[in-house]
């Protein structure tokens, strides 16, 4: 079941990552939107879509300048939790609905908060059609990925080029009179290249600070922090099973049968869980803490037998709106803990089989037993 392919594969394709990063760019196909409700039986031109996009982003002047759609409805992945529905979610929702429906909600909203925000909207039907066109494109194409982050790559290439030039200059061309300039360039670019390479090599297969968007804007800060829900209430298998478990929708519904409106999030997000539960559809959470498949990690061992606090590995979840992987989950990190962590040697009868250690504890030659002493750093404790 486990495999070690992924890491290896990634290594093979590493060069392609660099290359593909260079050549990926966002070009888009145009979507033809036909609108029946407003009887604008014309095909939207590319220009219309661009105007729609600009309207959405608030780049086109209209009467209420201060409010843009993008202000509340995020279009890019954001790092912080924005309680309002994403642009893409709304777009998907309205993909199969008419522009009329959209304009109804847009101009005559029902929710209290929405009324407050949307009250000054003055958009012409044409403008709404254009916005709808843009939103439809968004729904169909999904997020057009922003330009990939290639700053590191650019620096890398620049450093390599500098290094090459300084070597060539030192040996052949000798343009620079002051050799020490060349030496400094050489040294610093070599340092930078090594640093980048080592850093990215270590990072292969790791994802510290991984914080993906979830299908529901579920906030641990609200549930575990504000509402003081115990971790084990939802992740109930943690003390006695390998996996901590993601709560079934019925667990969510224990509260959300009653709680249907969030103070900040409104009904939109909570409705997702309710509708999933009613339609018997599982929610596709994105797993944040992923270990390679050849690693066996048991929550029961750590939480149940070891008595670890969840926060020790998962960070201060109570303050996280969006769950983020705090630790790098590297083998070194695991082992650092195994080296120093003490086991409940005298408290758990299981350990009485370790006669020699027990003897030492009795003699006082040892005051505590660490995980390492009972074989916690051996391969087959985690890999088999």
């Amino acid at each position, binding site marked *: 079941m486990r495999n070690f392919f992924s890491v*290896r594969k990634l290594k093979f394709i590493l060069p392609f990552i660099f290359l593909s990063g260079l050549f990926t760019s966002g070009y888009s196909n145009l979507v033809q939107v036909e609108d029946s409700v407003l009887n604008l039986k014309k095909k939207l031109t590319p220009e219309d879509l661009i105007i729609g996009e600009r309207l959405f982003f608030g780049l086109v002047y209209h009467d209420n300048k201060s409010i843009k759609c993008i202000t509340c409805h995020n279009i890019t992945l954001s790092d912080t939790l924005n309680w309002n529905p994403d642009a893409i979610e709304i777009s998907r929702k309205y993909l199969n609905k008419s522009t009329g429906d959209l304009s109804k909600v847009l101009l005559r909203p029902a929710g209290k908060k929405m009324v407050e925000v949307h009250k000054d909207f003055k958009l012409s039907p044409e403008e709404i059609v254009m916005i709808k066109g843009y939103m439809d494109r968004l729904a169909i194409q999904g997020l057009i990925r922003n330009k990939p982050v290639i700053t590191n790559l650019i620096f890398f290439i620049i450093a390599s080029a500098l290094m090459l030039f300084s070597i060539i200059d030192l040996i052949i061309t000798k343009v620079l009179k002051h050799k020490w300039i060349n030496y400094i360039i050489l040294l610093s670019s070599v340092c930078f290249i090594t640093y980048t390479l080592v850093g990215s090599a*270590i990072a292969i297969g790791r994802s510290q600070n991984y914080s993906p968007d979830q299908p529901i804007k579920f906030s641990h800060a609200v549930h575990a922090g504000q509402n003081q829900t115990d971790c084990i209430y939802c992740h109930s298998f943690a003390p006695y099973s390998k996996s901590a478990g993601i709560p079934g929708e019925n667990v969510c519904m224990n509260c959300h049968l009653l709680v249907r409106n969030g103070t900040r999030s409104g009904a939109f997000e909570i409705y997702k869980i309710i509708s999933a539960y009613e339609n018997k559809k599982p929610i596709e959470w994105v797993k944040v803490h992923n270990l390679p498949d050849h690693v066996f990690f048991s929550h029961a061992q750590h939480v149940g037998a070891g008595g670890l606090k969840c926060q020790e590995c998962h960070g201060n979840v109570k303050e996280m709106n969006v769950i983020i992987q705090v630790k790098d989950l590297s*083998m*070194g*990190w695991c*082992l650092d803990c195994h080296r120093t962590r003490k086991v409940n040697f005298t408290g758990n009868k299981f350990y009485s089989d370790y006669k020699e250690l027990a003897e030492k504890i009795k003699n006082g030659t040892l005051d505590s037993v660490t995980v390492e002493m009972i074989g916690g750093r051996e391969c087959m404790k985690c890999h088999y």
Partner: protein
Amino acid sequence: MYNKKIRGPLVEGNKTLGQITKEVMKPLEISPGVWWPIAFGISSAAAIYGFYAIYITVTQGIGTWGVNNSVGWGWEIINFVWWIGIGHAGTAFSIFLLILRQKWRTSINRSAEAMTVFAVISAALLPALHMGRVWLVFYIFPYPNTRGPLWVNFNSPLFWDFTAITAYLLISASFWYLGMLPDLATIRDKTTSKVKKAVYGFFSLGWTGSSRHWIRYESLSFILGGIAAVLVVSVHSIVSTDFAVSVEAGWHSTLFPPFFVVGAIFSGFAMVMTLMVLIRKLYHLTDYITDNHMDAIARILVFISLIMGTAYLTELFVAWYSGNEYEIFTFFRNRATGEYTLQFWGMIICNALIPQLFWFKKVRRNWIWLLIVSLFINIGMWLERFNIVVTSLNKDYLPSNWVSYSPTHIDIGVFLGTIGMFACGVLLFMRYIPMMAISELKSVVHIGNKKED
């Protein structure tokens, strides 16, 4: 010291210094004739076949080879040990003779060292290929890492082997290159082509032949020679520990280190002889690589052959004398009379009997005989490695695990590929690098010639 009266001059034909430069550089200046492109074509074809075999191995798996659950090492390790053995001769040749101040080494050591470098490269390729997951080869470096940090197993002979071969490759290449410096400078200064001047100038590192250069050069040569001598002995000893540290009958033997070192020098000298016989004929360098040189190598070979024969007998005797049934089985029933009897007796004949022909002066001075015998020794040494690697594993302790071993075309392809790479390397070397150490020849040209009288 060298006694020219007994052994004749080191360089024949009363050459002047300028003549030496000219004649040794000649192969670099003029095109060598039809044989060179033909030979290079054949070698590169073999190398390409080898690369194909390597490609198949890496993409599909070691399963494409003939190895199996009991015989975990096959042709590739045989070839590895064989190449490493050959790779020993060059350095051994130049270093031992350097330390012993045997001046007659000068005509041969450059080629021998080149051979070493190419053979060791061929050899080093094989254990890497033999890894099931060659892309994780960096696991073998004990570098600080984020896995704990997890180090390597310093008890493993394979780790010793890995360090030894890496060190050996680095050191023999440095030694070879160091020796080449004055000659590269000579070419730089002599050549008329601008490109060559630039290229050789770049690689000659700015050598001028000043006394400051020469004094450091000399002492560095001796330092490298001195420690490389230790290395020559230790590297093949370490290769032998791959086997000797094991528990397998036929491997687990304290005889192995010296036996392997001697065997390595044996095969290496045989390969030197094969190459020298061909080079001196092809390039008409008989004045430099004289019959006396060949004679000397042949004498060494016959001596080592006797040691080899003794070692084989010792192995058999120890197996019998130990009373260990597994040893007795391996040597007497599996090797001497079993499935691989051909390989065993082939080894004895090629390594212990045929070289005895070198007792005859006529054989020692006839280049065809030299070529034939040296080729036989090369084959014999390959068979010896076959005997060691395969026949210990295929029938070891538990008879239920006994199997036969036969190679696949991929195994053969990898072997041919290494031969092709080696040959390509040697051919390029002959074309672009002076085959003999010009500066050293100059320093010994007067020895044995009339001037010194």
